[in-house]
């Protein structure tokens, strides 16, 4: 008993000190604004992580070049999440104890998930630029904002786009894994809700080269469109065999198949195939100058999540500017009110759950052996 009381006193004392420390930076507002960047800079996903970090640097350089934020320079503090839940919690705790004014990043959803609580407890504004698992949504304490579309958003986009093409009957093929089955089920549900018909939902084995039995079945059902929800390698084979069997309807593939390699495998058959993709720089007209500055600072082209991460940094800066202060609550409020349309990846505004109100998936079309942006 004695011990417990003693400890409670210590805690109270610590809390008092803590409160004093928290109050301090609000008064002193002339130092630099520090933004945390939580990305995997080591480990298997380091390529993507460093790419995101470079995109943030491009944005910060522009901001500082324009006189900074609230008259103060912006500084970065990097937290390496290593695509690992433990490493990311350590990185997040470090950033939180550095009292950063906001955080951008988040690549692997599994590593981002446990950091939501860390930033939530400190009420630090967190703009998540790549992680897009729907599991993040219920775990969000309210300070995090997801600017990458989720799997659910992709199925909505697929349904909208194909309906727009006049497709009525749809056959969906997945590969039995969590990712492709999820997309297949979500799309099937929404397709039916939209009043259309799903004539077949099929699953194929990964690595099985011969899909002729399936293509015969599909041809006999003759749906207006076939949707492949898994990856490019088997997708390329399926597309080839579908066309070989004489199927002439629309073929669409999910974002696991939007690799340029699809054309090497499917060849001619991939002409006119529709693909869905995150907003990557090469297909965004607004990103031309971003690509230029990125290439000037790095010796590679921006990767798939670079534009979104650039947007994330700019969005956070916009929110701090709008709030006129780095006070966390005010910045979070500003983020929630975001409704500007001039971001690289398209318009960003948020739902009540702090996810994108409007999917930023783009539609691509196979033309002359490469992906081009399709007319929507």
């Amino acid at each position, binding site marked *: 008993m004695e011990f417990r009381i003693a400890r409670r006193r210590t805690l109270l004392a610590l809390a008092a000190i803590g409160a004093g420390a928290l109050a301090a930076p609000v008064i002193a507002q002339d130092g630099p604004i520090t933004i945390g960047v939580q990305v995997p800079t080591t480990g298997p996903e380091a390529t993507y992580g460093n790419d995101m970090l470079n995109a943030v640097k491009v944005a910060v350089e522009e901001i500082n070049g324009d006189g900074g934020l609230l008259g103060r320079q912006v500084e970065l503090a990097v937290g390496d999440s290593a695509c690992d839940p433990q490493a990311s919690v350590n990185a997040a705790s470090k950033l939180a104890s550095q009292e950063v004014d906001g955080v951008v990043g988040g690549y692997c959803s599994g590593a981002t998930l446990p950091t939501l609580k860390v930033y939530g407890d400190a009420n630090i504004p967190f703009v998540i630029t790549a992680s897009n698992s729907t599991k993040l949504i219920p775990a969000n304490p309210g300070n995090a904002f997801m600017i990458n579309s989720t799997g659910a958003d992709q199925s909505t986009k697929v349904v909208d786009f194909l309906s727009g093409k006049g497709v009525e009957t749809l056959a969906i093929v997945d590969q039995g894994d969590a990712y492709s089955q999820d997309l297949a089920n979500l799309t099937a549900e929404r397709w039916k809700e939209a009043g259309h018909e799903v004539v077949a939902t*099929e*699953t194929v084995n990964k690595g099985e080269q*011969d899909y002729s039995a399936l293509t015969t079945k599909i*041809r006999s059902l003759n749906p207006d469109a076939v949707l492949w929800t898994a990856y490019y390698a088997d997708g*390329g084979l399926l597309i080839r065999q579908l*066309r070989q069997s004489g199927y002439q309807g629309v073929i669409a593939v999910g974002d696991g198949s939007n690799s340029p390699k699809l054309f090497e495998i499917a060849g001619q058959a991939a002409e006119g195939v529709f693909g869905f993709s995150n907003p990557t720089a090469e297909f965004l007209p607004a990103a031309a100058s971003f690509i230029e500055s990125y290439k000037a600072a790095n010796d590679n082209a921006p990767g798939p999540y670079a534009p979104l991460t650039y947007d994330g940094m700019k969005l956070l800066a916009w929110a701090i500017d709008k709030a006129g202060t780095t006070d966390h609550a005010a910045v979070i409020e500003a983020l929630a009110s975001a409704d500007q349309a001039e971001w690289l990846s398209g318009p960003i505004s948020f739902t009540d759950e702090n996810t994108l109100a409007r999917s930023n998936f783009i539609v691509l079309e196979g033309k002359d052996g490469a992906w081009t942006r399709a007319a929507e």
Partner: protein
Amino acid sequence: MTTFDILAQQLVNGLVLGSFYALVALGYTMIFGVIKLLNFAHGDVYMIGGFVGFAVLSLVGGLVGTGWGGIALSMFVSMIAVGFLGVVIERIAYHPMLAAPRLSILITALAVSLVLQNSVLALTGGEFTAFRTNLGFGGIALGGVFITYNQMVLVGMAAILMLALETFVTRTQYGRAMRAVSIDKDMCRLMGIDVTKIIAVTFLIGSALAAAAGTMAGAYYGSIWYFMGFLIGLKAFTAAVIGGIGSIPGAMAGGLILGLLEAFGTQIPFIGSEWKDVFSFSILILVLVFKPTGLFGKSEVERM
């Protein structure tokens, strides 16, 4: 498409798929015949065959074209090269183990499989390689059934290879020796047959057939990768067991039957294609329950 058209089309699909299974199953069954080994590396030999065929076609494609002529040539080169690879594998990995317990050699086969897979993984970085050819999509339509020229050539080539094998095994001295070795190795030695050489010939032929299938599959489907031998290895093994492992006609029949079962299994009303393997493997269980030696297998007598 009418129901008849659909079934006829699935028959064609099943024949094509079954031809691949049969060619690979033949190697399984021949090797099992002579040294009683389930050669789990056989699917990977098929994969190597695809890569060698691709390499050859890339080299000579400019000269002879990448149509069926060029493919047949690269298939031939691949058969010879991979046939000798099979002999080398046998000599290095299996030969020293022939007197060891059966389990040791089985584990060795798994090790060989991993060595082959991971070598190609290391060389290709695990990427899919596009097998470019200028095979068209042309074909003939019989009513609602569409048969491409590629499918015809493919089934034709498989049939020629199988006929050649059948002639070799039944009409030549080596074939006779092979059948004899599968019955009783020790007696063969006493009769003056070079058993080591016959085993090598068996690996040569079995691997060459797998290489032929690998090259044709690469050209026909259009892509190859290091893991392509796994699933077909499993399926071909199943085909060999359905036909009766150790029996050459059994492997041919087993391959075709499995191909047809999978094609028709896709078409069963009310259930999706994800059930086709459940369907075909249930048939395997039934075959084994009612005829444990397989359709063409005899329990004690000759196994070739």
